[in-house]
């Protein structure tokens, strides 16, 4: 309570009484009309005074009556300077054009919207990427991928080859909130993690929050990955695309009514199954194996104050092996948004959001086959307000309510199989959130960003709630009517970060956040799978709670050309989930009895140097960290390493622009091998050689390292046509990194360790084009 009071005093103390006027409007790209999220306007006459455009390109700046010079800027664009005589509230819509020297090739590798935003923003470091700026970085199969590139940034660890998902600062793979135009994406991978669902041609911008997470976000304990789709060109029609080894892409965009509305349709389909036709095993030929993505978005401005967006994503993986085996899964999302400008200080967005993820697989067909399917579906109503109180305070507040429907599993069986038809009870829950936050500048050097989120979770009928004894037998059983509350959880989530600018080129920041996570992904294999099941918090499963403190120091040198940062953090995770031996998670209506509960701790320090200008750009980072778990039921309560407890983690990414035609790039990755469980003894039981399992994750895979190389050749540009060729080599020196290690008997009857590696040296070539 004391803290709230303190924040309240701070807030009201900052309300100036002098007469103020507001300049507001939009900041967009001169060429295609895209909103420039994060573009800034600064007041030349006043030190450290300005505003930033929000994700819809809207900005609002309140100043005392007077004459000002306003400078609008965005990294990679020419500044626009306006002089205003502020005697009333005015609207200024600004279009920024790309500066000549970066017109062809974006040199900045990681964009920060303002050159020194890493220093000045009160928010703890946010990792931002846009597809354009990473297009030259070499990636597996040459398929550009924002999610893969994020895994090269500090604090973010990929789950490894053949694995979807990623880990942020020691958190679990299900603790990342992945949003696409505000809609939750439950499974962000294709082909079991070799590709993400984010088609770069359709993506405008990605932001990853890993500490000091703003109060507007909630629901996952470790991080937020906020992906925004492009709006489409509202000036003229355009077609672009690419042809790659594994997949091809095509995007069409253009105005609905020039300057008022636009649309974009972007599709991608893989043709990996072609390779299977060359497989030595003839059974594999004629196999279907592909994925596709379709992103669609349209927006339209109704007058000066209203704008409507409709966006959707549909993606699916499909795998069919003759009549024997079929497996497919996919996400669908849809978002309808309405922006309304109530006044030059009050901006509103209302969204209705739908999300669905489902998988199904089948074995055999007709009377001799059976199939299983499962899904999770959300409806979400979300209302957000931004109130630009004055040039020192930007207030955000809002609420949302999600209705979740979990369908744990349906079994459909052919007549000859002898299985029953099983349709497990659906599970229902409502998740609500309400928040208020303020970004406040206390002085030219000291800024605060603070907020509070209330979250609640209503697990409800109709359905049956069970309790179990320690051996998993049902103790009690109670049925509930539709919408009857089975269990209600709620929590207050404080969020806080502050920055102290120590001089023009350096700052110190600190942050704290608490987040409740009410739905959980269960996976009892080390490789993630589309069959990993999402379950709600219930009478037995308590919400996960993540707390994190972080402190960072940031220093820019040589006119922001080099950016150095060091961040350190400690994270506590409560109500973590693990599994009893041989836990069965598929088609299990009483999955809670397979679970055990414990806690997690993670801490570390991340060093990074970025070079943002010049012919050579890129970054180097090194992370020293631990990720531990502790469960009463595992190893007698001793703490153990989480699988992703990679103690040393190092990434180097370099891009060199040789000329307007050629850009070369490389990335190098090194990390401590994953923590895994090897046997610590062996015995023969019932004729079978059986490992004796020692300490959980008490062993290590061999260290992982890999070098990738890339080159992009920008072919001669025509007036209305530009095109390029991208060459890449994944794992250039052919390191055999362990995907798994098995203990097997060799021909001499001796037990040996045998590792499987998935990839040695994969070359790729991709052709990209754009009709202007």
């Amino acid at each position: 309570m004391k803290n709230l009071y303190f924040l309240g005093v701070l807030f009201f103390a900052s309300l100036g009484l002098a007469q103020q006027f507001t300049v507001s409007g939009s900041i967009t790209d001169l060429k295609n009309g895209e909103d420039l999220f994060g573009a800034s306007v600064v007041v030349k006459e006043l030190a450290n005074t300005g505003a930033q455009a929000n994700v819809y390109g809207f900005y609002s700046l309140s100043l005392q009556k007077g004459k000002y010079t306003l400078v609008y800027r965005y990294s990679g664009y020419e500044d626009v300077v306006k002089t205003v005589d502020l005697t009333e509230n005015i609207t200024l819509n600004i279009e920024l054009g790309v500066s000549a020297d970066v017109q062809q090739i974006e040199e900045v590798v990681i964009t920060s919207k303002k050159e020194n935003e890493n220093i000045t923003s009160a928010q703890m470091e946010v990792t931002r990427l846009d597809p354009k700026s990473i297009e030259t970085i070499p990636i597996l199969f040459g398929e550009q991928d924002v999610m893969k590139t994020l895994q090269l940034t500090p604090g973010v660890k990929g789950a490894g080859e053949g694995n979807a998902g990623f880990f942020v600062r020691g958190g679990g793979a299900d603790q990342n909130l992945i949003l696409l135009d505000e809609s939750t994406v439950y499974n962000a991978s294709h082909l079991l993690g070799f590709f993400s669902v984010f088609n770069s041609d359709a993506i405008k911008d990605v932001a990853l929050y890993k500490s000091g997470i703003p109060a507007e976000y909630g629901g996952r304990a470790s991080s937020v990955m906020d992906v925004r789709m492009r709006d489409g060109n509202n000036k003229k029609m355009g077609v672009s695309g690419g042809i790659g080894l594994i997949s091809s892409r095509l995007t069409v965009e253009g105005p609905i009514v020039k300057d008022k509305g636009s649309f974009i349709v972007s599709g991608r389909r893989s043709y990996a199954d072609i390779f299977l036709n060359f497989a030595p095993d003839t059974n594999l030929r004629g196999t279907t194996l592909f994925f596709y993505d379709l992103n669609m978005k349209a927006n339209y401005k109704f007058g000066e104050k209203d704008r409507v967006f409709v966006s959707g994503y549909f993606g699916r993986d499909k795998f069919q092996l003759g009549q024997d085996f079929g497996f497919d899964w996919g996400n669908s999302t849809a978002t309808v948004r309405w922006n309304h400008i109530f006044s030059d200080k009050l901006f509103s967005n209302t969204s209705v959001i739908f999300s669905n993820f489902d998988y199904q697989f089948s074995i055999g067909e007709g009377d001799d086959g059976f199939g299983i399917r499962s899904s999770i579906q959300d409806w979400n109503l979300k209302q957000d307000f931004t109130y630009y109180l004055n040039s020192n305070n930007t207030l955000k507040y809002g609420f949302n309510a999600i209705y979740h429907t979990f369908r744990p599993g349906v079994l459909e069986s052919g007549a000859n199989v002898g299985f029953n038809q099983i349709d497990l009870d659906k599970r229902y829950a409502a998740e609500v959130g309400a928040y208020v936050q303020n970004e406040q500048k206390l002085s030219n050097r000291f800024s605060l960003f603070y907020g509070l989120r209330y979250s609640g979770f209503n697990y409800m009928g109709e359905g049956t709630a069970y309790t179990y004894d320690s051996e998993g037998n049902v103790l009690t059983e109670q049925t509930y009517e539709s919408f009857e509350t089975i269990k209600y959880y709620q929590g207050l989530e404080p969020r806080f970060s502050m920055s102290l600018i120590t001089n023009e080129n350096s700052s110190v920041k600190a942050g704290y956040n608490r987040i409740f996570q009410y739905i959980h992904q269960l996976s009892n294999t080390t490789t993630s799978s589309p069959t990993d099941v999402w379950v709600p918090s219930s009478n037995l499963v308590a919400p996960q709670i993540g707390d994190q403190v972080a402190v960072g120091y940031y220093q820019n040198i040589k006119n922001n050309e080099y950016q150095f940062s060091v961040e350190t953090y400690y994270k506590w995770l409560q109500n973590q989930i693990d599994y009893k031996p041989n836990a069965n998670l598929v088609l299990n209506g009483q999955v809670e009895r397979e679970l055990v509960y414990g806690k997690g701790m993670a801490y570390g320090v991340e060093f990074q140097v970025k070079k943002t200008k010049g012919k050579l750009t890129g970054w180097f980072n090194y992370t020293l960290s631990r990720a531990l778990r502790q469960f009463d039921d595992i190893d007698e309560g001793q703490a153990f390493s989480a699988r992703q407890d990679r103690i040393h983690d190092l990434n180097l990414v370099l891009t060199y622009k040789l000329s307007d035609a050629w850009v070369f790039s490389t990335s190098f990755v090194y990390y401590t091998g994953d923590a895994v469980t090897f046997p610590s003894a062996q015995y023969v039981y019932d004729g079978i050689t059986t490992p004796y399992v020692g300490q959980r994750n008490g062993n290590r895979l061999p260290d992982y390292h890999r070098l990738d190389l890339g080159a992009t050749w920008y072919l001669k540009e025509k007036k209305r046509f530009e095109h390029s060729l991208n060459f890449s080599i994944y794992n250039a020196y052919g390191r055999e990194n362990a995907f798994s290690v098995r203990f097997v008997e060799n021909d001499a009857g001796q037990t040996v360790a045998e590792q499987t590696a998935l990839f040695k040296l994969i070359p790729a070539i991709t052709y990209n084009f754009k009709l202007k």
Partner: protein
Amino acid sequence: MKVVNYIYIILFFGAILSCTKEIDVEVKDADPQLVIEANYDATNERVQVNVSITKNVFEGGVNPVITGAAVEIIDENGLATPLVDQGNGSYILENYAPTYLSTYSMNVTVDGVMYSASSFLPEVVQLDSLSSIFTEASLFGAAGYVVYMNFTDPAGLPNYYRAVRSVNGEVLTDLGDQFIFDDSFSEGNAQTVPFFGDRYEVGDSVVVEFRSYNKNSYDYYSQLFDLAGDGGQSAAPANPVSNWSNDALGHFATWGWDSKYVVVVE
């Protein structure tokens, strides 16, 4: 669903790109643990117990056996009958007549420490017949005859089965040949359950010993087979849950069986 995952990964990436090699890894050797493998085969009226200790992972040979232990089986009336030490780690009792639907206990005393376990002996479900059907080549096997077990799952209670087959007189004991299942998807149904991975030729003779386990034994063997075949894929690897006291590894199982025989014909 490890299976689904595995099929998928191995098919696409395994078939084309992956490679395996032997590597040196460090393992932490545990102290030797006592392993008690105890079975009461009620149909054969035979009790056999094998007592041994674990050995290091990279050590060859069989587990060191424990002789000189005192082993006894106790019926539900508390009547204890000793097993005979064979001098090779095995302890055997023949002609021990069963009482179905009763609980048996066992005590094994090694170096003055007594290890105890108990197990319920369920009724035996009858195997009606075996049949064979010709099946085309697929992912699961080459072209050949698949053998099916035909039986009716008793309604109203959970049942747990293990099928051990002998082909042309030879018992299949490899991990990949283990076949254990329950009736959670097929409660009360007439069943035709295939050995889908096996493909037989005309003239092959197949005998199936169709065992009826209790839940505890089903769980134990499921966990054991899972662990032994896992290859590092489980996120929560754990030793099978033993029913012995004093932290001994292993299991005491009580079961009966029915058996059928088929010769594959065209």
